[in-house]
């Protein structure tokens, strides 16, 4: 078992624009990028959820520095930077839509909800008007600027997580087989379950790979790395993959930002090698103090154990 804490805080000042067109289509522009972590999905989910739409209703435009500023993808900060900026823009759009609808429904904006692509009267759901209807005839696309807020100044905040690993150690060969990993994390609100799980799977497998196989071997005489290729620098294959069970606390912390969410890129990577190393210790009664825990190192550790009873 091993645990992690990590900021996962996001970058204040991240910007996003949300546009509503007179045909009812909605577009979000943000100068972020999706390197496979699901940014595109998260933007659509946040905008859609705020406006009572479906994610596929949102046209997401990213990957262009001309779009409103957003930070690099790194440091577990994309979702907690971009998400709140999109949420901010979408909340402003929601207020605008409620304002338009309040005239048509003849009720104060505060009494109106956005759901199922409609603006609905809280007290009487039979009174509703489609978003498309409300914006029909707009003279121009309406643009809403969103900005990610400052961090709270009165308390510290982190992501938290713990991994539990089950391993088998072949004491005759020193080979470690990871059988199962259970990983629990508190990263505030989980924006999208599938992409969040993928972050956890990736963090565990990269940690397994680094913990067991990956070794940068430098040659003292030539000053070069002797294994700069995917044959000699070994990374985990399909046959090294344990059963992995991701668990999320999914507790919203509204004090952090308007989504109550934190980053999840690095957190699952942090304890994954260590949890395996501790499970190895539990299995063989001696610590392997260095990764990768290669067969040679495990056999050497077992010899140390034999040497001092």
């Amino acid at each position, binding site marked *: 078992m091993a645990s992690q804490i990590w900021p996962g805080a996001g970058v204040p000042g991240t910007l996003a624009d949300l546009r509503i067109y007179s045909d009812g289509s909605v577009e979000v522009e943000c100068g972020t990028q999706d390197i496979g972590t699901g940014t595109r999905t998260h933007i659509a989910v946040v905008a859609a959820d705020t406006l009572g739409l479906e994610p596929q209703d949102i046209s997401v435009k990213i990957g262009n520095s001309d779009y409103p500023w957003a930070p690099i993808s790194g440091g577990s900060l994309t979702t907690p930077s971009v998400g709140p900026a999109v949420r901010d823009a979408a909340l402003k759009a929601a207020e605008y839509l409620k304002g338009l609808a309040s005239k048509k429904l003849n009720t104060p904006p505060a009494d109106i909800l956005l759901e199922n692509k409609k603006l609905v009267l809280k007290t009487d759901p039979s009174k509703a008007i489609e978003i498309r209807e409300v914006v029909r005839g707009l003279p121009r696309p309406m643009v809403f600027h969103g900005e990610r807020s400052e961090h709270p100044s009165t308390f510290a905040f982190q992501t938290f997580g713990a991994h539990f690993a089950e391993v088998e150690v072949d004491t005759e060969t020193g080979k470690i087989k990871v059988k199962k990993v259970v990983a629990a994390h508190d990263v505030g609100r989980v924006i999208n379950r599938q992409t969040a*799980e993928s972050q956890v799977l990736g963090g565990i497998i990269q940690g397994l790979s680094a913990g067991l196989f990956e070794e940068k071997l430098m040659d003292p005489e030539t000053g070069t790395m002797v294994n700069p290729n995917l044959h000699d620098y070994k990374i*985990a*294959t399909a046959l090294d993959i344990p059963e992995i069970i991701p668990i999320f606390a999914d507790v919203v912390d509204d004090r952090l930002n308007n989504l109550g969410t934190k980053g999840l890129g690095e957190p699952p990577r942090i304890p994954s090698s260590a949890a395996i190393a501790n499970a190895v210790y539990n299995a063989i009664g001696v610590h392997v103090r260095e990764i990768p825990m290669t067969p040679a190192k495990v056999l050497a550790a077992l010899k140390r154990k034999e040497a001092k009873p």
Partner: protein
Amino acid sequence: MENSRKKKKTVTRRAFLQSLSGGAVGAGVASRVLGKEPRSIQSGPGEMEVFSSKRIALTVNGKKVGFETEPGETLLQVLRDRLRLTGTKRTCNRGECGGCTVLLDGKPVYSCHILAIQAEGKDILTIEGLASGDKLHPVQQAFIDKDSYQCGFCTPGFIMSSVALLDKNKQPSLDEIKAGLSGNLCRCGNYQKIHAAVAAAADAMRRG
């Protein structure tokens, strides 16, 4: 709807690279510039035929294609640079990662490690040949449904290996799936969802 700032003329990275490698002449010039000139060896009557370039025909995704190729050109180079089938990825270019996996006469191989000239007369299936019209192959659909990729670079190779596996084994166990996909690496570490997608695709294909 177009933002006026974006109306300026842009050249994409891919278009730029393609403009460099366009056609047999371009590729030939590039290889001569980059590599040494081989000693010219002639073959006599009755001897083995020797080629310094050869016009070949093969079938790619059901279509007959023909082109002039040099012996130093890999099947992967032809697929990407000549036929513009860029779904097949060049990743390690050493037969060590699986990103370039295609099916050659139905069997998965690394296209980076096969000479194009050797593919003469063969039947090649790439990721672009899987869907029929707008309908994705069940393996492709399952990869989407199960969110079986992150950066996506290994995905075409994994899908081709998965298709080959399911051709041979309609109902693979988890261990058989892992063994069948053991020639493809995923650096993002999404293996578990990839395995789940193959199992789901197998179910979908059995149901028909």
